[in-house]
């Protein structure tokens, strides 16, 4: 995980997501982005625009994805994808979804036409489209695309990958700069494609690199919660997973080192041999390292019965402990996973310690 962290070093926040796409997820991603941007002096003013464009990007995935999703899933061709990243003074919002080859050609031409228009041309096209008011079959009549170009101030970047005789993957990417004068693209669509492929190959369902503050954690937990829902309610069989994820995020965050007011870390949900894994990592404070390692080594020596006894003993006396969770957090992860969780400490060249916990979901 440290390798990916290093690879994305320039990205202050990066969220990639291959999951359920609905309004609730849109709202959670928007609040994750707003929470971060509002705390950044240079990017604060882009918060509303970014939220708007995240919503447009999501609608585009939902509207223009192929109708027969089962066909795609059965053939395991590809998955819908969304990515938000902040690099320096730029924000990029990207999406990928599968469309038919016929639609791909039309869509590509349509974007080319729109990208050639200047501000006045875009405004006129938007007015014309609105006045026609005959929304396309899938809704929107291309208004979303026009809005994306108008609001971002940059031409929309696109990339098509033919997946089969019938289907193609379309990757769309928008860039937002904090000055209207900026007209030079900084983020390449090839990078987005690389991230897409890398995450797809590694079977990453969700990847978040960014701040591990309380608000960010809550938003991520709610996104996952939403993916663990069944018939609009929490799926009881996923309760342990939700609680274990909360514990692991709060554990990593608790020991996390704050750099420039942010506790930066990584959270990933991956699929390995059809099993879902959770991994959470960040830099920890040197003074926390020894005690944390000692605690982890001790927990790992316990069998399941010893774990239960140790947990109950800690629980009975937890109210006396100065520790916020009475030292129960890691024990909870250990007993939920039957002590199969893994951890690692990577010492960096800067003498920092990168702490990582990984477990198979229950």
């Amino acid at each position, binding site marked *: 995980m440290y390798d990916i962290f290093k690879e994305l070093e320039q990205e202050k926040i990066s969220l990639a997501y291959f999951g359920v796409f609905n309004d609730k997820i849109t709202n959670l991603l928007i609040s994750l982005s707003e929470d971060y941007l509002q705390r950044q002096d240079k990017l604060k003013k882009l918060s509303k625009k970014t939220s708007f464009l995240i919503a447009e990007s999501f609608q585009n995935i939902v509207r223009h994805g192929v109708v027969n999703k089962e066909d795609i899933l059965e053939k395991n061709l590809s998955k819908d994808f969304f990515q938000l990243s902040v690099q320096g003074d730029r924000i990029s919002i990207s999406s990928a979804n599968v469309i038919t080859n016929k639609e791909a050609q039309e869509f590509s031409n349509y974007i080319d036409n729109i990208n050639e228009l200047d501000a006045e041309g875009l405004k006129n096209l938007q007015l014309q489209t609105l006045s026609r008011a005959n929304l396309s079959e899938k809704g929107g009549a291309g208004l979303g695309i026009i809005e994306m170009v108008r609001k971002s101030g940059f031409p929309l970047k696109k990339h098509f990958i033919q997946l089969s005789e019938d289907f193609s993957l379309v990757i769309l990417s928008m860039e937002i700069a904090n000055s209207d004068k900026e007209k030079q693209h900084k983020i390449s669509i090839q990078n987005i494609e690389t991230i897409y492929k890398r995450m797809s190959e590694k079977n990453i369902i969700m990847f978040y690199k960014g701040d591990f503050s*309380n608000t960010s954690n809550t938003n991520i937990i709610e996104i996952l919660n939403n993916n663990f829902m069944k018939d609009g309610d929490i799926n009881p069989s996923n309760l342990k997973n939700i*609680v274990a994820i909360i514990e692991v995020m709060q554990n990593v965050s608790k020991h996390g080192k704050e750099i420039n007011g942010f506790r930066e870390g990584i959270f990933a949900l991956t699929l390995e041999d059809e099993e879902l894994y959770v991994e959470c990592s960040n830099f920890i404070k040197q003074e926390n390292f020894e005690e944390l390692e000692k605690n982890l080594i001790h927990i790992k020596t316990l069998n399941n019965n010893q774990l239960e006894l140790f947990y109950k003993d800690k*629980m009975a006396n937890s109210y006396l402990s100065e520790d916020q969770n009475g030292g129960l957090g890691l024990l909870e992860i250990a007993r939920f996973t039957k002590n199969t969780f893994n951890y690692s400490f990577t010492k960096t060249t800067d003498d920092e310690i990168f702490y990582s916990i990984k477990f198979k979901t229950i």
Partner: protein
Amino acid sequence: MEKLIIEATNQTPEVIFDGENGAFFIAGKSYPENVNEFYKDIYDYIELYKQKPCHKTTIDFKWLYYNTATTKNIIKIILLLKDCSPEFEINWICKKHFDLIIEKGEEIKEVLNVNLNIIQN
């Protein structure tokens, strides 16, 4: 004694403490990062209640899920309320099939040796 009412958020539970009638209710999710800050008002209220408690004190917990930092606070709440009235009742209300919450109720019952009614609805 005025009621203590706290509305639920994504990470904190709904709280309705009615000291006049000795009826306490906590429901929903609980995983605030700064858990001590959230539960402080609850402890302050319990301290006030203990000055003039009812004959019977009942606390209903109706959890969706919570973190271990909340476990510590549930223990503390129960220990604070346990001996303040001649009668004390704990109702642990769970949704059907919420096995984790049922197990957690059973653990608290065992660890604290208290009379805790697990009610599935």
